């Protein structure tokens, strides 16, 4: 009896000491400005990485960029300390990544939201315009005034892409719909300014909008708060933000950054990781709108049916959503 349990124990000990994966796998994430807990874009990446950690028991290193100049340092430090699967979150890391990836050829890099054309870089981009089209439809259907709003973070083509899809979606439902658009700023600080976000949201509510879509990272928290304060509706972005202000968030345009991060880690661990460009749209379930217990009452069955029909039509190519970044 004792001997048997001793044997089991030593077996267990053996299982613990044997590395689960080859020792050379070492993962890292570099978050962008806005921070790991922005409840939105970066947080989605964090959840993906955490899922990987939980499932495999392999921990990862992380770096939060708080200043523009730190992006280069963050990526470089990770590569220098031997991380060979590094995920860069955010379009702004494209330029520093290009430099660092050339210097550390042994390391594998995955970048979210930008394309870097190097053999050791995998670029993951999303068809945000498709997801935004759907939430634009939802906004126009939920709106009583026929006026809806959009609040972007930093004024960059990527955010214009969200905006254009949203406008097209709203006009698809209600051709007479009026869409107000605001950008929070022109510097990366615009991703993390909830006070300004709230102020912008109020200005749009004052002009008659009753649903506002915030594609602005941490700034969006202020938009959601303003929606609650004014008893109007907001639409979240990137992560499922329905739970932040239950009853006042119509839905969220989810972008599966978490899946992208998880898959990058997982494929790298299994040695199946490949460079190149991955484009995730509605078809790949890379984008979509969120439904949960918090917005059940806000999205009627009729609305849901229309959204699902439009989703199928976009996938089938019957509805064409303009991609702002491909336009020019």
């Amino acid at each position, binding site marked *: 009896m004792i001997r048997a349990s001793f044997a089991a124990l030593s077996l267990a000990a053996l299982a613990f000491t044997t590395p689960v994966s080859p020792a050379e796998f070492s993962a890292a994430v570099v978050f962008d400005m806005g921070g790991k*807990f922005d409840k939105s874009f970066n947080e989605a990446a964090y959840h993906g990485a955490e899922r990987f950690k939980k499932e495999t028991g392999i921990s990862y290193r992380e770096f939060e960029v708080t200043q523009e100049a730190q992006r280069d340092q963050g990526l470089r430090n990770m590569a220098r300390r031997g991380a060979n699967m590094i995920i860069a979150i955010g379009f702004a890391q494209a330029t520093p990544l290009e430099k660092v990836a050339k210097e550390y050829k042994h390391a594998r890099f995955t970048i979210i939201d930008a394309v870097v054309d190097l053999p050791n870089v995998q670029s993951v981009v999303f068809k945000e315009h498709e997801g935004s089209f759907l939430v634009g439809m939802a906004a126009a259907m939920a709106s009583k005034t026929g006026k809806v709003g959009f609040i972007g973070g930093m*004024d960059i083509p990527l955010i214009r892409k969200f905006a254009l899809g949203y406008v097209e979606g709203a006009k698809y439902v209600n051709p007479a719909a009026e869409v107000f658009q*605001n950008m929070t700023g*022109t510097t990366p*600080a615009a991703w993390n300014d909830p006070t300004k976000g*709230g102020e912008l949201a109020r*200005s749009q509510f*004052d002009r008659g909008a009753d649903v506002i879509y915030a594609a602005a990272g941490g700034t969006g928290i202020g938009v959601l708060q303003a929606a609650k304060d004014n008893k109007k509706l907001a639409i979240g972005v990137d992560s499922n933000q329905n739970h932040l202000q239950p009853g006042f968030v119509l839905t969220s345009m989810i972008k599966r950054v978490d899946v992208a991060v998880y898959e990058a880690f997982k494929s790298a661990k299994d040695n199946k990781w490949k460079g190149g460009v991955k484009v995730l749209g509605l078809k790949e379930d890379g984008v979509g709108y969120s439904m949960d217990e918090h917005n059940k009452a806000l999205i009627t069955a009729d609305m849901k049916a229309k959204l699902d029909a439009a989703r199928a039509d976009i996938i089938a190519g019957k509805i064409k959503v303009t991609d702002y970044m491909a336009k020019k």
Partner: protein
Amino acid sequence: MDTLLVLVSIIDATLRVATPLVLAALGGLYAERSGVVDIGLEGKMLGAAFAAAAVAAVSGSALLGLVAGVAVSVALALVHAYASVTHNGNQVVSGMAINIMVAGLAPTLGVAWFRQGGQTPQLAGDARFTPIDLPFARALESVPVVGQLYSEIISGHNLIVYIAAAAVPFSAWLVFRTRFGLRLRAVGENPHAVDTAGVSVADMRYRAMVLCGVLCGIAGAYLSTAHSAAFVRDMTAGKGYLALAALIFGKWKPWPTLTACLLFAFTDAVQVRLQGVPLPLVGVIPVQFIQAIPYILTVLLLAGFVGKAAAPRASGIPFVKDR
């Protein structure tokens, strides 16, 4: 009718944005009138914003948060006073040190206490200052123009907005109509004369810094527990410096300073509403240009219309008794 609504919403936004500026600028007014240059307004506001949000999140009471914010801000003001009055240190360096220290310390403590990446939890219900409806606001709503102005613009703000509104006449009275105010101004103009008259210069400057701390503390609490609902890293976003600019703009006098703050806030409110709206003749103006308007206006006004802005003469100079 529609124009009236737009106007009302712009004025409403102006008041909301101006509140922290007014409070911080008045804080700066006391400090500079006493001869202590304070570029640490920013840091004091940020520290207070963090303390207020943290205490409000834990205790669930916005008032306790306000008290904590004021306490932290006063403590920081006393640090500044200790360095620059007691030890005759360089006031700009000391103020800047406070700004940098708080900018780093607040998110660090936030990470340690709340584990949300330096933010504090979202506040709800009693943990925030919520709009107050003044008496008869609902009843007068239907009265054209006057009733609407009362119910839409004057009523429906939170407590701190009203505190800020009261702080301006109070400061004007305190600085220009009381013995304390006379001494305060004298200390900033000619500390040696005050010293000869038997009044302690250091004592006056300490008192001024405490007042400055209280006002900055209220401004900071407003940012995190009234205007928005959580502390976020660097949430003051240069408002302390803008308040200083308003103070210079207002020639170190309460009423003109209020006007300057309202002007800054007004341009901000207007630029928000101009974005993406086609204007007659010019069409849609690029976002970048719209967002530069408040700053362009500031430079133009400072260059052309203010005239000579003369600071209190002893401002920034440590008081050293001749031996």
